[in-house]
């Protein structure tokens, strides 16, 4: 079925073939279109349909999914080329623009290839069928006599040929993706499955590519925010002498203060920086608010029932209590991971142009360039923050530094918009490093208590109790879901009602255990309306630092706990860690990634002498990509320093679109995972984050946010298990999940010491070593 629709405004002139598609099931799209009388809203603001455009000389995807530096643009292009029977050519990628691309939700959760890929494939297949139809009419032959190769359709057995451009010259088609359009079979893939180089890289390494940080608009001025003295602090005053000092700065324009939101605007970036610094510009007096729960007490505090607003039982199989009583051997252990941060290389940035009146033609009053993962949700949130109707806000995605989840990208857009609205000029604002580290929403600290039983080499009982703050604080339309909204008196979003696939991601295991229980204690991030309420009581009454989605969410910490504890059970029950994992699975694809480590495991270092090997497994979200990881470490027993020497990853994410692209994502997961395992920990005091730069220095004494260095990076070997007949699943996060447990298991093999707390710093490891073998 192919529906023909009226043309959209942006499909201008003849020579165009446009196919609409959507991430929702295609039936629903067809129904929507049909019910709408075969008409599509030209504003695209109701945002349901993505577009694949074929013009005479180019192909363009209009996508709500955005390129975050992970290479999805290149991979999506490969899918389109194959279905269009094109071997070459760049496919344009118009992304994340609330006026010309559809609302496809958040670009996150390793779902762009997984969900967007098949829909785009179907759209391209629909376009190809239309091209065949045009060629059949052109040659007056049946389409069964046609064949296509690299943009040329020919009549089999003749010299008759026609290029797509010529066919499109006569066309003016708007179609809806046809779910029945035949797609290429795996054997026909020419471009899919090949390591096509990244389309964006040449521009990035030659500085021809412009990042969000490079966006400049006419009349633009520069902003800088001045943050409160602490997470819950409130504005008291600006000292008059500092006000006079700031006014004397050449280029200074104004101070903006709305509630607890304070910023400055100047004609140059340097002047804005000077005006915002207490030594050279504005000095703000703040009143401290409620202190945060002490960092040193986190492992206990997260487990304290007084910090829980809800407890949910999320897995319940068999009778765990009875099985623990009858098991041959039982083990229990607690695990802890700290707050960690996204820590983008480039502090987050935005340019906002908020006018006094809407544009007469478009109705747009606020244009915001931002690196949000969800431009539509940001648009709604900004509209509410600025007091504008939603269609009056236009958000345009521009690529920034890699984000690894929900960082300050949305917050800075709101900061810039508030400043622009107040001064009536376009404002560019890039956070300082100290603001990025100090105020980005963090990945949550988590605590885990596990109990298990093993009999005759098989796990007979398993219980995981997880304590977690929220991992989901993305903008949802409410102004309090951006920092500027919180500071101007709006409430944060309600806390979640279950750990689910957020804080609870990968807390359930994929192993088949006869008795298995998962209990989640949901931690009260801020004061709520009552002991069991998930509703915020006030904007600035945080108990813990503000937290949200960081690469794999709870999956990193939950997998650390599960996969370390499984090793503890194996050790207690005398089972081989790799064999126990294989024996505990029924899923052949899970077994296959584990077996791919077999050779390395069989030839692993003997252990016990400071060098050892460990394995760990994860299936992303318990239902997508499979990862098994082997790690070798050497532990310096005099300093406690862990060196990761070798990492092997066996990875099955179904159909491989771009092997090198997936390898690159896996390498990134491994390296970031080692960094988070060995080094990364947010430090904070009563008021807020104190690890505000990368390294300790005289200006920032005390522990800072250290990340892995080049000289600490091990050799990484990746085995991709390609399954061309299976759906392509995401690969941006799965491989980070097994890393901390694989390292911890290797440290145990190397030293006999089990490290149950991240990061595994030399001091922590040394103290654990000394506990086991006290120095004389």
């Amino acid at each position, binding site marked *: 079925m192919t529906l023909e629709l009226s043309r959209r405004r942006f499909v201008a002139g003849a020579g165009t073939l446009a196919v609409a598609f959507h991430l929702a099931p295609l039936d629903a799209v067809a129904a929507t279109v049909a019910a709408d009388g075969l008409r599509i809203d030209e504003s695209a603001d109701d945002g349901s349909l993505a577009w694949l455009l074929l013009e005479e000389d180019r192909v363009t995807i209009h996508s709500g999914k955005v390129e*975050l*530096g992970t290479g999805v643009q290149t991979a999506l292009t490969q899918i389109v080329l194959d279905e269009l029977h094109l071997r070459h050519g760049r496919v344009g990628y118009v992304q994340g623009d609330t006026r010309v691309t559809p609302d496809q939700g958040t670009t996150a959760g390793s779902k762009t290839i997984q969900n967007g890929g098949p829909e785009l494939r179907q759209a391209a297949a629909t376009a190809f069928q239309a091209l065949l139809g045009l060629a059949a009419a052109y040659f007056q032959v049946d389409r069964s006599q046609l064949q296509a190769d690299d943009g040329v359709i020919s009549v089999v057995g003749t010299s008759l040929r026609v290029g797509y451009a010529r066919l499109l010259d006569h066309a003016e088609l708007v179609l809806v993706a046809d779910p029945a359009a035949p797609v290429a079979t795996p054997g026909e893939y020419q471009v899919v499955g090949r390591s096509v*180089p*990244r389309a*964006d*890289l*040449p*521009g*990035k*390494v*030659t*500085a*021809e*590519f*412009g*990042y969000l*940080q*490079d966006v400049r608009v006419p009349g633009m001025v520069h902003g800088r925010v001045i943050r409160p003295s602490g997470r819950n602090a409130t504005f008291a005053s600006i000292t008059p002498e500092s006000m006079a000092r700031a006014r*004397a*700065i*050449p280029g200074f324009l104004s101070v903006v203060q709305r509630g607890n939101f304070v910023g400055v605007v100047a004609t*140059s*970036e*340097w*002047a804005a920086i*000077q005006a915002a610094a207490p030594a050279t510009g504005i000095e703000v007096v703040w009143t401290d608010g409620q202190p945060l729960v002490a960092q040193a007490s986190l492992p206990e505090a997260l487990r304290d029932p007084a910090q829980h607003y809800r407890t949910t039982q999320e897995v319940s199989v068999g009778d765990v209590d009875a099985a623990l009583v009858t098991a041959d051997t039982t083990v229990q252990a607690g695990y802890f991971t700290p707050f960690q941060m996204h*820590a*983008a*290389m*480039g*502090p987050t940035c935005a340019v906002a142009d908020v006018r006094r009146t809407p544009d007469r033609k478009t109705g747009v009053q606020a244009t915001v360039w931002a690196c949000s993962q969800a431009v539509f949700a940001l648009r709604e949130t900004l509209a509410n923050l600025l007091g504008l109707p939603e269609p009056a806000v236009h958000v345009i995605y521009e*690529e*920034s*530094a*890699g984000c*690894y989840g929900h960082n300050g990208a949305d917050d800075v857009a709101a900061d810039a918009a508030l400043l622009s609205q107040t001064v009536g000029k376009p404002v560019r604002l*890039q956070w*300082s*490093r100290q603001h990025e580290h100090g105020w980005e929403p963090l990945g949550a600290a988590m605590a885990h208590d596990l109990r298990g039983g093993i009999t005759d080499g098989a796990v007979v009982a398993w219980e995981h109790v997880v304590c977690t703050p929220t991992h989901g604080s993305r903008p949802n339309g409410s102004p309090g879901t951006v920092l500027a909204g919180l500071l101007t008196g709006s409430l944060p979003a309600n806390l979640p009602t279950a750990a689910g696939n957020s804080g609870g991601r990968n807390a359930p295991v994929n192993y088949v255990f006869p008795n298995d229980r998962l209990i989640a204690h949901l931690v009260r991030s801020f004061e709520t309306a009552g002991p069991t309420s998930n509703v915020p009581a006030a904007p600035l009454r945080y108990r813990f630092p503000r937290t949200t989605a960081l690469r794999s969410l709870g999956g990193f910490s939950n997998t650390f706990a599960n996969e370390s504890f499984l090793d503890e059970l194996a050790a207690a029950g005398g089972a081989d860690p790799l064999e126990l994992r294989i024996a505990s699975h029924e899923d052949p694809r899970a077994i296959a990634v584990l077996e791919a480590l077999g050779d390395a495991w069989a030839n692993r270092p003997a252990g016990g002498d400071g060098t050892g090997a460990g394995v760990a497994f994860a299936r992303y979200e318990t239902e997508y990509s499979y990862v098994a990881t082997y790690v070798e470490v050497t532990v310096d027993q005099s300093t406690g320093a862990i060196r990761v020497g070798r990492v092997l990853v066996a990875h099955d994410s179904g159909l491989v679109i771009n092997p*090198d692209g997936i390898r*690159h994502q896996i*390498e*990134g*997961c*491994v*390296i*970031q995972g080692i960094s988070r395992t060995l080094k990364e920990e947010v430090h904070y005091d009563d008021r807020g984050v104190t690890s505000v*730069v*990368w*390294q300790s*220095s005289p*200006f*920032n004494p005390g522990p800072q946010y250290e*990340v892995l*260095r*080049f*000289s*600490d*990076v091990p050799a*990484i070997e990746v085995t991709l298990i390609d399954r061309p007949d299976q759906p392509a699943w995401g690969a941006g996060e799965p491989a980070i999940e097994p890393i901390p447990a694989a390292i911890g298991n290797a440290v145990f093999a190397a030293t006999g010491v089990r490290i149950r707390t991240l990061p595994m710093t030399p001091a922590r490891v040394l103290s654990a070593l000394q506990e086991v073998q006290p120095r004389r």
Partner: protein
Amino acid sequence: MPTSLTRTVNLNGERRRVTVPDDAEQLLYVLRNQLGQRGPKFGCGVSQCGACTVLLDGQIRRSCVTPLRTVPEGASVETLDGLGSGKRPHPLQQAFIDEQAGQCAYCVNGMIMGAVGWLRQLKASGRTTAPSESEIAAFLSGEAPGSTQNYICRCGTHLRVIRAIHRAAEELLS
């Protein structure tokens, strides 16, 4: 009160004159906001990440901690923007493409410009063989002789960056 300053620099082989109202303004902001450069990037402002790296009179410099008043009159400034182009990339840029050494690539300005400066120093000292991958890793970690500055990559492209620099070094030092 800030002191204004006018400087002429030789930016990628071209004479450019700039005036700033405050001579403490860091070179990074002058390059990005007055001289239209996109290569050097703001990463930390405290000389800890390398994203702002340029070559100042041939020396590797973190432009985020280089006040314009410390830049000599007539000084040569080299940036990623002037190193090569998409049509004619510098061997290091080509090597980064060949090795696919970038995800978000916000940091690669630092690694490329740092490596340009470092490999020139090695060549000037008479070295004719490419540094090993572990020497390159040490350089990028601020652990090589004469180099104390760490370069940060957050996406985890480290191994490819090291390979890219090694590949280019084989061409540039032979």
